[in-house]
């Protein structure tokens, strides 16, 4: 196992979650290095999605700690964690279907001053107006990067599955978190779009956003990650660069087996 090269963006220690008698996440510990793409793989039921829910505050852990930039996250509400700079996506794209693509991107950036009730009412003048205008042009620019500029006035709910994934990536670009956790971004995505997503992930890193990506598509994991964590039955069973995992018998048994034997 190779040690992560840089200081961790995220540190998970002994995270545990039971659902009734089932242990979904069992003393799970790992680190995601800063400024890198970390893959999180494992068979169905390994506890990857539960782990993400625990990290991002959508579920409460039974025990264990999560440190983000050295700050403990457990017990914090999802919106507080998001405001600290950790944003997660979901297995299925969660666009705001009744808002336009452009509005989806603009609203990805939370704005404390203007979103309060009175702030919202006063928000149409002065400095806030300038901020709104710059936000709008930023959103336009991001949509251009993702090839969605022509669709910006379309309702997000009318887009194809692949386009919705791109909108999700555009929202993350807009929010500029310090760490993003992508939950199966390749689900239902064609290979051409996959290449664009790989490039987008590289752009996240370039703009200072560290990435954790949960994915079943192993070629994609190999393509984008520097470091991979393998989970099975709620715990981490191996970690390291993807190439080294291929030869790890535990990993092969737990997960890669089917593919390697083919």
């Amino acid at each position: 196992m190779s040690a992560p090269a840089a200081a961790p963006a995220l540190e998970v220690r002994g995270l545990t979650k039971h659902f009734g008698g089932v242990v979904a996440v069992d003393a799970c510990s790992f680190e995601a290095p800063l400024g890198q793409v970390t893959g999180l793989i494992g068979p169905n039921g390994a506890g990857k999605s539960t782990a993400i829910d625990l990290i991002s505050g959508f579920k409460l852990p039974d025990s264990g700690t999560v440190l983000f930039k050295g700050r403990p996250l457990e017990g914090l509400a999802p919106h507080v964690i998001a405001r600290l700079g950790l944003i997660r996506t979901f297995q299925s794209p969660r666009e705001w279907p009744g808002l336009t693509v452009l509005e989806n991107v603009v609203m990805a950036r939370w704005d404390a001053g203007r979103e309060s009730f009175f702030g919202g009412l006063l928000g149409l003048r002065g400095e806030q107006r300038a901020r709104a205008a710059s936000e709008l042009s930023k959103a336009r620019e991001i949509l251009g990067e993702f090839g969605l500029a022509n669709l910006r006035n379309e309702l997000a709910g009318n887009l194809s599955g692949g386009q919705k994934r791109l909108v999700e990536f555009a929202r993350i670009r807009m929010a500029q978190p310090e760490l993003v956790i992508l939950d199966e971004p390749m689900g239902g995505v064609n290979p051409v779009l996959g290449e664009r997503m790989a490039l987008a992930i590289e752009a996240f890193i370039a703009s200072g956003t560290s990435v954790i990506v949960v994915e079943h598509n192993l070629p994609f994991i190999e393509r984008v990650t520097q470091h991979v964590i393998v989970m099975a039955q709620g715990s981490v069973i191996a970690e390291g660069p993807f190439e080294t995992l291929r030869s790890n018998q535990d990993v092969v048994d737990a997960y890669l087996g089917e593919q390697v034997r083919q």
Partner: protein
Amino acid sequence: MSAYLISVLTEGAIFGIMALGLNVIWGWSGDFDLAYYGYIAVGAYMTLVLTIGPAQAPAEYILGQQLPYPVAVVIAVVTTMAVGLVVGLIALRHLRGIYFSIVTLGAVYVMYVIAGQFVPLFDGYNGLSGLFDPMGDVFGLDYQSYQYFFLGLSLVMFVIVYAFMARVSSSRFGMALRTLREDERAAAAFGRDIYRLKLKGYVLGAALGGFAGALFAAYLTAFNPSAWSPVEVIVLYSAVLVGGRGNIRGVVLGVLIMGVLVQESTRFLPDLPGLGQLNTDHPQVLLAMRGAIIGLVLVLFLRFRPRGLLPERRFVDRQPAIDVAPRSA
């Protein structure tokens, strides 16, 4: 202007404020709130107990003040917001969809039963009366000119509320409420405090309900449990649905169609053979027809035009924007 037209327009303006308040809760936040008519009732009751003076036996009710009408309205609205906050704190904590609706239905029936059965509060089923021409004496108006005055007051209040809601609608706050309606998990993942935001929207909606109730009390001069049944809220829902949920122009159109047209058109139904005069001999038939028409319109719109006559308008960006990457998928 005939007395009839004045009353229709006054009711329409008040009904419009009610519908704009419901639109905040259902149109923007996306919560199907069945307690809404309760806030209208609280606004009306509070206005009455603060303006009609001490109770004369055997009537009994709380406060019994003789405050100037505008002061009473402000206190009534604040009280309504407090009641809305309590209901919202409970119902919005974890419940959504039908579960939220059931809890709010419970809440409004609790309000209804307390108002009806707990006599020392608002004199039970007798209700409250005696708010005649508030502010009329200040301006020295006779009965006839007062009707014009109150119509003008209601219309001005409606226009103010409308302008205010137009501002909220396009504000970042209004947009944040819509992200909750569209997908609240995504809203939380992007930094929105769902519970707080929903509560703010809910209390704002309740405040408008209470304000409309305060005007309604002055229009009716009285209020009692037979003046409000919790199912009245369905008429308001039909107005918002028919006009266009989330679009305040649509809501006004919906009020014109459902509130004024449908409510009033049944007055002009032809008399049925053998039944005598519908208006005078069979008022219950008219009431039933009104309910049936509203129900039919609701079903037709839900089936054929669920987004209403004027669907919510989205911001359209007309600045040029160019794709630097090739368009895909």
